[in-house]
C-alpha cells in the first residue's frame, strides 16, 4: 500500500537557492513499505526525518522541496495526485489535535471531508452517522470544537478521518498531547484500523502504547534508516539499546539511565508548618456556556501541602484540573477562591503573580525578547552577564545567546522558558506539560532543567502526562481526579 524506494528529499526551492549551493538533505535514500493490515512505526530523535516521510506519503510536501526516488501510495504518486483524490485514499492524523480542525463544531468537522470529496449528501450522512456511532460521539455532535478536551478532540479527528474510509493511514506523533487513558484509547483505534486491513504508518517518540499493535519498527537518524526491527526483535532488545538509539523506552517510566536517581514516591510531608506551602479550600468554576448559574466546578481541593524545595508532579487525566490549579497558583486565573499560605502568610493573587513563575504549555506565547540572553533579562534587567551565561550553560543553551527565541527548536524554546524562570528570583515554579512532543534527548534536557530549578532551592510543581519525565525528576506525585487532589 505504501511503497518508498530510495527516496531522498531536500526542502526549499532549487530555483531560489544560490547557484551551486546545495539544499540540505532531509531524507537520504529511505526505502520502506507498509502492506495492508500492517502497522509500521517510524521512530527516531527530533529532526531525523520522520515527519518528512509522513508528509511525503500524504502529499503535503508537494511544492515544498525536491524529492527523488519512487513513492507509491495505494498505486498513486502523492506529489502529482490531486488533493481530493489522494484524501480519499490516505487519512492523516497529526500531533496537536487542536490544530486539525477546519470547522468550529463537531458535526461539521465529521462531514467536512465527505463534502470536500462531493460525496452525495445521503451517502455522506450515512457515513457520518456510522462513525458517530463507532467512535461514541453522539453526545458531542453539537459541541464547539473549542469546548472539547484533548482526548475528545483526538477522537473527533480519528472519526473524521475514518468517515472518508481511507485504505492508508498516516499518523504523526498522535499521542503527543494525550493523557494515558486517551493514549490507551488511541492504541485501540489503531488496532481496529489494523483489523480492518488498513496500511498504517505511525511516526512516534512514545513507543510504549504501540508495542502491541506494531509489526515493524524503522529507526531513522539524520534522514537515513539505521535499523529495521520486527516487533519481536524490538521487544527482545534491552531498554538500554532503545536509549542508545535516542528512543523513548518500549515500557514507559522504566528507563535504565534513571534507575539510579529515581526516588520512591514519598507520602505527603509531615514536617513543621514553617517548611510547608499550604493550599486550603481552593475552588474554581468555569462558566458553563457563558452562564454563571450553570458554572462547572473544575477545581475543589480542601487541603494540599507541598514541602519547600521539593519537586512534585501533578498527574491526572486531560481536564482533571492540573492546568487550572497551576494558573490559579500563579495568580493569572481570574476568579475562584482559596488560600495559599507560606510561612503563615496568605499570598493573594496579586502577590502570587510576582512570586510564582509559570511556564505554560504553549512556550511560543511566552517568549518576548529578540535574543536568547535578552529573554533572561526581560524581568531581571540588572542580571549580570556572567549569571546569564551560567544559567544558559546549565540548560545547554550557552551557544545560542544571540539567536532569536522564535527561531529555536521546540526543545530549545522549552528550555529557554525554564531558563527565564531560573533567572527570576521566585520561590515557586509551576510548569505545565513541559515535554509534550519532545524526544528522549530533549525530554532529558528538560528534566535536568527541572533539577536545576530544584537544586537552586525552588519548589517545583510540574503538571505532566509524561511518565518518563516523572520518573526522571519528580520526588512525589499528586494525582488530580476531577479537580480533587
Amino acid at each position, binding site marked *: 500500500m505504501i511503497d518508498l524506494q530510495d527516496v531522498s528529499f531536500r526542502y526549499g526551492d532549487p530555483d531560489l537557492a544560490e547557484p551551486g549551493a546545495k539544499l540540505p538533505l532531509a531524507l537520504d535514500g529511505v526505502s520502506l513499505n507498509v502492506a495492508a493490515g500492517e502497522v509500521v512505526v517510524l521512530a527516531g530523535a527530533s529532526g531525523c526525518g520522520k515527519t518528512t516521510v509522513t508528509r511525503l506519503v500524504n502529499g503535503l510536501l508537494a511544492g515544498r522541496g525536491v524529492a527523488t526516488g519512487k513513492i507509491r501510495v495505494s498505486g498513486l504518486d502523492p506529489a502529482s495526485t490531486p488533493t*481530493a483524490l489522494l484524501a480519499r485514499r490516505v487519512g492523516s492524523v497529526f500531533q496537536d489535535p487542536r490544530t486539525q480542525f*477546519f*470547522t468550529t463544531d463537531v458535526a*461539521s468537522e465529521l462531514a*467536512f471531508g465527505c463534502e*470536500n470529496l462531493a460525496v452525495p449528501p445521503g451517502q455522506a450522512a450515512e457515513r457520518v452517522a456510522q462513525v458517530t456511532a463507532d467512535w461514541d460521539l453522539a453526545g458531542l455532535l453539537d459541541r464547539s470544537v473549542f469546548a472539547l478536551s484533548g482526548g475528545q478532540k483526538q477522537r473527533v479527528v480519528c472519526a473524521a478521518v475514518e468517515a472518508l474510509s481511507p485504505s492508508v493511514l498516516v499518523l504523526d506523533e498522535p499521542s503527543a498531547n494525550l493523557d494515558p487513558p486517551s493514549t490507551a484509547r488511541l492504541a485501540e483505534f489503531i488496532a481496529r484500523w489494523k483489523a480492518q486491513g488498513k496500511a498504517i504508518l505511525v511516526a512516534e517518540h512514545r513507543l510504549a502504547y504501540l508495542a502491541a499493535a506494531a509489526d515493524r519498527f524503522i529507526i531513522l537518524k539524520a534522514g537515513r534508516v539505521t535499523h529495521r526491527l520486527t516487533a519481536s526483535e524490538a521487544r527482545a532488545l534491552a531498554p538500554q539499546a532503545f536509549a542508545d538509539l535516542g528512543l523513548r523506552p518500549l515500557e514507559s517510566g522504566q528507563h535504565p539511565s534513571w534507575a539510579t536517581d529515581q526516588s520512591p514516591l514519598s507520602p505527603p510531608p509531615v514536617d513543621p508548618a514553617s517548611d510547608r506551602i499550604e493550599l486550603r479550600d481552593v475552588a474554581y468554576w468555569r462558566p458553563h456556556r457563558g*452562564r454563571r448559574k450553570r458554572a462547572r466546578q473544575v477545581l475543589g481541593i480542601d487541603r494540599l501541602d507541598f514541602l519547600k524545595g521539593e519537586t512534585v508532579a501533578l498527574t491526572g487525566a486531560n481536564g482533571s484540573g492540573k492546568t487550572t490549579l497551576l494558573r490559579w497558583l*500563579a495568580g493569572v486565573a481570574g476568579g475562584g477562591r482559596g488560600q495559599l499560605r507560606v510561612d503563615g502568610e496568605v499570598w493573594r493573587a496579586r502577590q502570587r503573580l510576582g512570586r510564582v513563575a509559570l511556564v505554560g504549555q504553549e512556550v511560543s506565547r511566552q517568549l518576548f525578547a529578540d535574543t536568547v540572553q535578552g529573554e533572561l533579562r526581560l*524581568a531581571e534587567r540588572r542580571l549580570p552577564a556572567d549569571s546569564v551565561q551560567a544559567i544558559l550553560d546549565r540548560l545547554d543553551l550557552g551557544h545560542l545567546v544571540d539567536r532569536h527565541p522564535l527561531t529555536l527548536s521546540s526543545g530549545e524554546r522549552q528550555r529557554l522558558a525554564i531558563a527565564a524562570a531560573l533567572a527570576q528570583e521566585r520561590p515557586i515554579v509551576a510548569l505545565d506539560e513541559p515535554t509534550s512532543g519532545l524526544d528522549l534527548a530533549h525530554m532529558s534536557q528538560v528534566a535536568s532543567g527541572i533539577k536545576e530549578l530544584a537544586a537552586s532551592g525552588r519548589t517545583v510543581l510540574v503538571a505532566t502526562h509524561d511518565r518518563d519525565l516523572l520518573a526522571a525528576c519528580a520526588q512525589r506525585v499528586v494525582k488530580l481526579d476531577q479537580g480533587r487532589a
Partner: protein
Amino acid sequence: MPVSVGLAYTGRPRTHLDPRSKLAFFIAVNTIGLGAAFSGSGAAARVAVTVLLAVLLAAEGAWLWSASAVVVTTVGLMVYAWLPPVGWAMPLVGLVNLMARFWPVVLMGCYVISTTTVSQFIAALRRLHLPASFTIPFAVVMRFLPTLAQESSGISEALRSRGLRLGAVKPHTWLEYRLVPLTMRAVAIGDELTTAALARGLDRTVERTSLARIGFGPADWLVLTAALTVIAIWALAPWTPIDPAAGK
C-alpha cells in the same frame, strides 16, 4: 441550549435562523448602525434594528448583551437629542456617538459567528451562488478569529506572569511583546489550517456537497422583512449630511 455570544461557535442555538437571514440582518445593522442619522427616520430605523437585535440576543439567553444593545442605542439617541456637542461635552458626545454606531455591529457580528456553524455558512453562501474562492476564505476567518483570540489571551497571561505589565515596561515595548508572538502564531495557524484542509481533500476544482440543513422558516421571513424594511427606510429617506456629532 443557551449559547454565549462571543467570537466562536458555542453550540446549537435556540432559534433556527437561516444564515442568509442572519447575513441580511447583519448588513442591515451595518447600514443603519454606521450610516443612519440620529434623528427622524434614521432614529426610527435605529430603534427598529436595536429592538430586533435585542430580541435575537435575548432568545439565546444572552441577556446582558441584549440589554447593552438597548442601553447603548437609547443613550446615543438621548445624548444626540439633548446634549449639544459644544465645549466640555464635545468629546463625550463624540464617544457616545461612536459607541452607538459600532456596538450594534459588534454584537450582531458575534451573534452570527456564535450561532452559525462553518458548514451552514458555506452552504448558505453557495446557495447565493458565491464562488468557492469567496466562501472558503470566509470559513477560514470563522475558524481563525476565535483561535487568534485564544492566543491573544494566552500571551497576555504570560506577560502578566512574567511581570511585564503595561507600566512596568514602556508602552511601545509592551505592544511589541504582544504583537510579535501574536503575528508569529497567526502565521502558524494559517499553516495549520491549510494542512488540515488539504489533508481532508479541500480542492477548489471539486464542487462540494453539503450536509448542513439550512432553509427558511417563519422567523426567517420576519427577520428578512425587517432587514429589508429598515434598509428601504434608510435608503428612501431624504439625504441628510452626516451629523456633526460624529465630529466630521
